[in-house]
């Protein structure tokens, strides 16, 4: 009983610690809050079902980020589903109170999905190019190129820096 309680507490701690990280990465990749909700649940469901063992906390973090990206890719593949979503009434779209922030969000959604991932991990998760490359399974030079291209596409925001 005591062991079970400790395990439950640890599970809660994992969810608490990585909730926002997983959700924000999913949200950065997907169009709607509902999709982000789905991916968020899927990621933690897989985590608890597989019970993977990790050498370090960094390892656990990297695993969660990778699985989040994989789950987002799976969701993108169902473009027919996206068309259906637009027809649904009451589809939950996420809107920020500030119109400038909404505009930034729209610009980011226009980026190729692979660029959005590197932008999020580099600028928000504060990862180095090498760390981003490891998470996404790309070479550091590819990540740098994608960051450069993303900045060109978002030039308005970088020109003002």
């Amino acid at each position, binding site marked *: 009983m005591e062991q079970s309680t400790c395990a439950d507490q640890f599970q809660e701690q994992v969810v608490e610690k990585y909730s926002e990280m997983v959700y924000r990465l999913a949200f950065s990749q997907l169009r709607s809050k509902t999709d982000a909700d789905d991916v968020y649940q899927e990621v933690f469901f897989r985590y608890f079902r597989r019970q993977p063992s990790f050498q370090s906390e960094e390892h656990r973090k990297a695993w969660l980020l990778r699985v989040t990206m994989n789950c987002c890719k799976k969701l993108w593949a169902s473009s027919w589903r996206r068309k259906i979503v637009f027809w649904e009434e009451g589809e939950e779209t996420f809107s920020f109170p500030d119109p400038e922030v909404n505009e930034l969000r729209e610009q980011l959604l226009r980026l190729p999905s692979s660029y959005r991932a590197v932008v999020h991990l580099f600028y928000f998760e504060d990862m180095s190019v090498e760390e981003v490359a490891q998470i996404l399974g790309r070479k550091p030079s590819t990540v740098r190129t994608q960051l450069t291209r993303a*900045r060109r596409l978002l030039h308005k925001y970088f020109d003002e820096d």
Partner: protein
Amino acid sequence: MKGVYQLNFSERYEHMNRQVSPAPELKTKILQAVESGKKKRGIRPAAVLAAALACLLVFTVPVCVLAAENPGFNSMLYEVSPGLAQFFKPVDLSCEDNGIRLEVESAAVEGDTCQVYLTLQDLTGDRIDETVDLNDSAGIRQARDCITNCRLVEYEEETKTARFLLTSTAMDGGSIAGDKITFSISNFLSHITEYKDVEIPVDWENLPQESPSRDAVYTGGGGAAGETLSEIRKAGLVRVLKPMEPAAWPVEGIELTGIGFINGQLHVQTAVKNVFENDNHGYFWLEDRMGNRTECLYNAYFRFDEDDSALSRQDAVFDSSREALRGSTLHGTFWVSGTFTEGNWEVTFPVQE
């Protein structure tokens, strides 16, 4: 406190993301689902419709014929159901384009992991050698989520053939037997030269106390100086040497555009052209008279507004003053690719026990 309109991109992006969080009831749902041993999720109408469409296609349309003769149809089917698309994707064990053949040699599966040997052969020229690198252009399509990697295991000089080992492991731990895998490549690098431990002769005494420098747009980097890099990342700008005309040195494919001091730190600057068609890169270090090695504090990749988008610049920064450098030598190791080859290569094969 800055208004939103006065923030740089990094700050704006952070400001946006701080407003995004999962609803508390989602967390509760997860923990409850784990306890009860099943996922609590309603079936969305969209999922039902997609499944219905997939069934309709299977029973009323000659899908296998369409998939074989129409790549566009296969792509569309992939968007409805990746599993169905891969099921109907025609097996194609070899593919030839631009005088290069990609072929499946063998595949073996055990439980949740499969290993596949693929060969890449130059039929007309000399574009493949023992340094061939798929340049992140390899794509893998499978019906299920897998962790995959592909590495070069052998090169045959006589036949100009490189052999790769593709390993794929199902993330859900389930058996991978019976799956069809589609593997594709769109370009590769080869004839990569390693310039190992190049000594760069520098007369430290003749370098100015402070070299001309300018601000540049920071595009990436890494190193031990976490706090410095974090500040640079937030600012989006980094102070770098003003590039000079490239100095004569033995590394072809990487330009040495400056060595000098900024605020008491040594900067060594390089530039690479046409970065979308090569992976030229390297690193520097210092050695003192005793042979002790000092790595750089950090690397900063950057660009100037007037730069061509295919140009990549880097400053390697050492926490070494001119006085500390007396008797030291500057060294570097670099890799430069000689050939960039493009094409459309794709194979599809079943994985069976």
